[in-house]
């Protein structure tokens, strides 16, 4: 019979029917079945992403333009952070396979050590993803701008810091002459979106009006992401014109000319679906990593208490290992198709 082991196999390995199809254990084969179905789910998501992207084509955000920040270092490091995340996940996959190898030698200490390392790697990855999400949601200082001709552009360059708001007209909380130094960028963004900034004068929540004192921006360029009357997708507006066009929109006093950060309705990077796919695909993957970490923790407790040692084999490590490698495998594809190409 196909897949039927030709010689006798010890009874603990045989399935209930006293044969061992494909010469593998029941648990491992079922894990493979699950992984194939999960792989199809992820492929479905990534292909749906590809579909939307090819339907939008030029307007789609570019990975190295969108993801170029590093913790503590700021902007200008394209793809480095995701590369670091990828590396962390690959290393945690390696420690997992080393745990499996230690299991084959019945080396309980080795399994404990490598499994623990895998769990730590997993937590690092989930933490990195949290940082990435937070960064994606908060967005850049510039945001996305709608220009006079109706085209939309993302903004590159260094944002000059806002130094303070000097109150010119008193409101509920502030007196004339007050200098506000708290939470400036957040208030500024809020006011710009609401259309409460006109000619460098910001109207604050309490109704007071203040002058915005801001350092100059450097190296600003605009990259058009949506066609308008004058500009087409892909046009790059050089520094000489970019600043005037950008601040014309910021100071226009009309609401919703700018978008900062991302939510499910809109985002500053590109089409609405881009944000939705980002949240869903990386979120679904992050959820897999998180459940993988939980499963590994449960298995680690079994290893420490000697459950598998008494059983005479560490096959459980192989099964959870399969799941963990699969999570790494999915990330390899997410990395390529979401960030790289």
């Amino acid at each position, binding site marked *: 019979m196909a*897949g039927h*082991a*030709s*010689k006798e*196999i*010890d009874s*603990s*390995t045989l399935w209930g029917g006293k044969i*061992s199809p*494909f*010469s*593998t*254990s029941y648990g491992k*084969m079922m894990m493979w079945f699950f992984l*194939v179905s999960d*792989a*199809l789910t992820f*492929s*479905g998501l990534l*292909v749906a992403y*590809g*579909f939307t*992207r*090819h*339907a*939008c*084509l030029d307007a789609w955000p*570019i990975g*190295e333009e969108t993801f170029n920040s590093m913790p503590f270092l700021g902007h200008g490091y*394209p*793809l*480095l952070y995701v*590369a670091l995340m*990828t*590396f962390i996940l*690959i290393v945690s*996959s*390696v420690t*997992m*396979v080393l745990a499996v*190898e*230690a299991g084959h*030698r*019945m080396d309980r200490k080795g399994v404990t050590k490598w499994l623990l390392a895998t769990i730590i790697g997993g937590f690092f990855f989930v933490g990195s993803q949290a940082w990435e999400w937070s960064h994606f949601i908060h967005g850049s200082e510039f945001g996305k701008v709608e220009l006079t001709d109706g085209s939309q552009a993302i903004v590159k360059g260094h944002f000059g810091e806002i130094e303070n708001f000097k109150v010119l007209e008193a409101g509920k909380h502030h007196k004339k002459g007050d200098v506000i130094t708290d939470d400036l960028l957040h208030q500024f963004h809020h006011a710009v979106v609401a259309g409460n900034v006109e000619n460098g004068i910001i109207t604050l929540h309490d109704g007071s009006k203040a002058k915005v004192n801001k350092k100059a921006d450097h190296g600003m360029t605009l990259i058009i992401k949506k066609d308008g009357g004058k500009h087409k997708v*892909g046009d790059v507006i050089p520094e000489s014109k970019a600043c005037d066009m950008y601040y014309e929109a910021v100071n226009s006093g009309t609401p919703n000319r700018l978008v900062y950060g991302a939510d499910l309705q809109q985002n500053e990077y590109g089409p609405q679906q881009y944000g939705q796919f980002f949240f869903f695909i990386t979120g679904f993957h992050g959820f897999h990593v998180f459940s993988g970490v939980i499963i590994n923790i449960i298995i680690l407790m079994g290893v420490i208490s000697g459950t598998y040692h008494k059983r*005479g*084999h560490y*096959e459980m490590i*192989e099964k959870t*290992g399969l799941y963990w*490698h*699969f999570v*790494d*495998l999915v990330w*390899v*594809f997410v*990395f*390529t198709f979401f960030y*790289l*190409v």
Partner: protein
Amino acid sequence: MERDDIIEYSLDIHHSEEHGKAIRTKIWKVTALLTAITALEVVLGSQIKQSSDYWQAIKWFFIGLTLIKAAYIVVIFMHLGDEKKSLKYMILIPYFIFILYLIYILIVEALAINSVWTLNVV
């Protein structure tokens, strides 16, 4: 305990210290390779812009590298290479048939939609 009933496959299959060493060497080699590929991808990705003439070639190069990485993860880390042929094919063939079809049909459809939208705008 001496066992004599384990032949082709067993849950209790254990390997020796030397064999383990060989396996570990292989694992570290694969790690180095995967890391090198990722580093190469990042360097190329950040240096070559999508507006570049070479972009199409680079894109397919990236996809090729990704498939190489995936193959190493599946064959070495997930030990699919050590499984029986029948199990390998049972996992790979249905998956590839379905996914290649899905990729083909959706990308073709997406390009068609894009051309219609572009026409309407102009």
